[in-house]
């Protein structure tokens, strides 16, 4: 077993950069001997990042296998999601009821989730139950039963969920947008599948997916809490050691998101229309990613500090929620925004949004906006390290995105280094308001054709 500590050298450097920036809050990682990330390698060769903390008698684990819903074959959309819903439905000698009663008796929390590019798992346990809990997770991962009655139960639940989704304006807008942007690429397919595809999924499909994807070569793990490196090493071998060494992932092509302008209206009898709009984004390993991240905060990622919130909600009262996000999927990045506005005003809201994107593309943000964005993003980084589960989650994503074990200590420097020129460059590159893809769900009433007006206020 080897334990590599990544800390001491970076601590010093970070201390200097913090002193230079009065506004900065100090990330948890930088607090003296506070957070220390160890890279643990088990006797069997399984790696994990560990932050030991014995303050509370609990352990939080997050893990992921690369290859999520994008591994679903055409016609079997929703398979990865189906697998996640079956993970506590029995394993080894335990049928679903026995498994779930044991979970409850051990007061453990186990959850699985299917992302586009990764399968995500999370586990929380009290220290006193850790051995039995790790054992149950081992069973779930390595010997899932996928019994027929459990499978039909879960299928009925997923189908009911799809029925609700069909009537949920946000979900409908989002699925339609994915389809518009990605067509037949796996990213264009619904993660939860369709009524037809979910009806076609069999026990063999579930076992096949697990066998192909739950393998040690695509596994990343982070652990925070009341456990030391040696004990974790043994636990890693116990939980994941029986999984196949190699995954069998099918190759996913690079997606080339459609360029607009395209606007699709899906009529639904609701008083408020929901719109999703978006463009090609910037991928995680692009040198422009951090500037794009700062830019997104200024556009619609920053709550009340964002342009869209200011223009759509604060100045005009057109919406309760309006926001944007970057989605840097592994094989294609997009920038997506959402707004919900009464049917009479949806045209106006979208026009205001389009104007703001155009203004940012042409002129960039103000110096004050840029400084405020950097002050928030660096200062609030520490808030992500507030609890064991949130730290474990941060460390997991740093591993999934392959950013390096020192990323926590480098991250604020990367944000601070972003210049006005960087943001203007990425704004010109990313924000092409005449290329917007927009889906609208509701009964939008278009505004009377009015002369395009100049910038408001």
């Amino acid at each position, binding site marked *: 077993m080897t334990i590599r500590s990544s800390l001491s050298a970076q601590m010093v450097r970070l201390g200097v950069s913090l002193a230079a920036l009065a506004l900065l809050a100090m990330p948890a990682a930088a607090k003296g001997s506070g957070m220390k990330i160890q890279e643990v390698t088990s006797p069997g060769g399984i790696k994990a990042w560990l932050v030991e903390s014995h303050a509370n008698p609990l352990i939080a684990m997050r893990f992921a296998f690369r290859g999520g819903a994008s591994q679903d074959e055409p016609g079997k959309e929703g398979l990865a999601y189906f697998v996640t819903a079956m993970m506590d439905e029995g394993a080894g000698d335990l049928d679903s009821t026995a498994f779930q009663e044991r979970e409850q008796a051990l007061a453990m929390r186990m959850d699985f989730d299917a992302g586009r590019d990764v399968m995500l798992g999370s586990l929380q346990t*009290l220290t006193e139950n850790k051995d039995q809990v790790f054992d149950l997770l081992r069973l779930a991962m390595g010997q899932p039963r996928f019994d027929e009655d459990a499978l039909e139960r879960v299928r009925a639940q997923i189908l009911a969920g799809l029925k609700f*989704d069909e009537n949920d304006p946000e979900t409908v807008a989002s699925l339609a947008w994915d389809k518009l942007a990605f067509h037949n690429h796996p990213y264009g397919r619904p993660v939860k599948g369709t009524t037809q595809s979910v009806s076609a999924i069999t026990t063999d499909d579930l076992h096949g997916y697990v066998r192909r994807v739950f393998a040690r070569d695509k596994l990343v793990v982070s652990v925070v809490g009341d456990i030391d490196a040696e004990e974790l090493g043994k636990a890693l071998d116990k939980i994941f050691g029986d999984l196949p060494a190699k995954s069998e992932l099918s190759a996913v092509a690079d997606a080339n998101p459609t360029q607009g302008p395209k606007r699709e209206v899906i009529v639904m009898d609701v008083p408020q229309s929901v719109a999703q709009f978006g463009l090609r984004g910037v991928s995680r390993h692009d040198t422009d990613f951090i500037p794009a991240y700062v830019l997104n905060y200024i556009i619609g990622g920053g709550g*009340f500090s964002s342009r869209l919130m200011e223009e759509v909600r604060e100045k*005009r009262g057109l919406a309760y929620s309006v926001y944007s996000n970057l989605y840097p999927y592994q094989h294609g990045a997009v920038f997506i925004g959402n707004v919900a506005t009464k049917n009479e005003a949806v045209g106006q809201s979208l026009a205001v949004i389009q104007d703001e994107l155009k203004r940012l593309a042409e002129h960039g943000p103000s110096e004050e906006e840029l400084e405020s964005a950097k002050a928030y993003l660096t200062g609030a980084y520490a808030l992500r390290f507030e609890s064991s589960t949130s730290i474990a989650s941060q460390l997991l994503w740093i591993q999934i995105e392959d950013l390096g074990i020192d990323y926590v200590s480098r991250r604020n420097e990367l944000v601070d280094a972003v210049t006005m020129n960087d943001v203007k460059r990425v704004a010109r590159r990313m924000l092409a308001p005449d290329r917007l893809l927009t889906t609208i769900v509701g009964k939008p009433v278009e505004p009377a054709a009015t002369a395009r007006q100049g910038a408001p206020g």
Partner: protein
Amino acid sequence: MSVAAVAAEKAPSEHVREFTLANGLDVVVIPDHRAPVVTQMVWYRAGAADEPPGSSGIAHFLEHLMFKGTDKIPTGQFSKIIARNGGEDNAFTNHDVTAYFQRVARDRLPTVMEMEADRMANLRLTPEDVKTERDVILEERRSRVDNDPGSILQEQMMAALYRNHPYGIPIIGWEHEIKALNREDAFAFYHRFYAPENAILIVAGDVEPEEVRDLAEKTFGKIPSHGPHIKRVRPQEPEHDAPVTVTLEDARAGRTTVQRYYIAPSYASAEPGEAEALDLLMRVAAHGAVSRIYKRLVVEQKVAASAGGWYTDSGLDSGRLGFYAIAGASDAAEDLEKAIDGVIAELREKGVTQDELDRARASQVAEFVYNSDSISRTARQYGWRLAAGMSVEDVEEWPDRLKQVTVDDIRAVARKYLVENNSVTGILTPVPEYTSSIGQKPAPRAGNGKS
């Protein structure tokens, strides 16, 4: 320790300290030094159930308006200043409380405390602020309620469950009353309830009690108390003589859903031990795939795709027990309702088994430990209870009180509160079945449309 400014002090726990400032503000400090961050929360003992008749939604409307400005904070700058300090902030309103909170690095606590104290006494609102924010709230109502038939049904069920108590009025307000809310209504509610003696300040995280006391005295401590005791007069619920069924047919319903609510006491209103027994009853009866309702309806009888329930335990005057069942492709509402009735009858007659109780208790007690892992969740956990009039000891001894609950206690509360006359049944059916039509519309010309 400045004795003059502190009216009362007790140290019930080695972890948590509470004291009261001379102006009546209750302060609770929960030190946790694992990360260099703090959560500040101010809980006002005022919520939607304290609104004057005809002004539904004003508590929530005021919560929005509290972000507008003061003499020191220019309009619209409150959250921006918090953000520039690397902080996150928000607020929420329910029937009994309105709470405001910030999460910041520990060295920003003085800034956010000064800002929070400032808006307790010095709110400024322009007519334009009020008008625009009212439109925002109407959009919020559309998002939360009008766009979602499940929420519409829930609103109707609450109105049927509470026929006299204001818990029957939606927190966000009825649409026609929201439209009539104005600046005067907001200030009237503000001046009546936003006072130091009607609030609780909770600071959790990387701080020491003495530090918080000094800061609180310099900020909140300067605000004069309002004097006469602030009265919360609410019409109380009479005994119910008959159950009610609410049915809603809506093409957007997705799948048939049956819900059942019962009025029951909350932690604040219950006889000693009853709320703990109700908590464990509902965990056995309705929490997750090992619950009674799920086993009976979904696993054994196969009359529903899913089923579960909850206990709303935080109210000042009353709580609620809730059960739901979601139909599979071919299940009928009558069958779901009958099956729910069967589960209720079984709970009333036979209670729960010792094995069920032990498992439920293990997971319930663990919730407390899991919650203590997060500074902000810990602050909330204390806030809910303290705002409902409970003490720090009540919160800390909760796991021990759960350990004392017996299967007999659970059967007793099941018999007492799962009573037909105290119930409302809600049925939501997708009629007529909806098919979304997909069609292209030409992209409209970009019009500003600003009035």
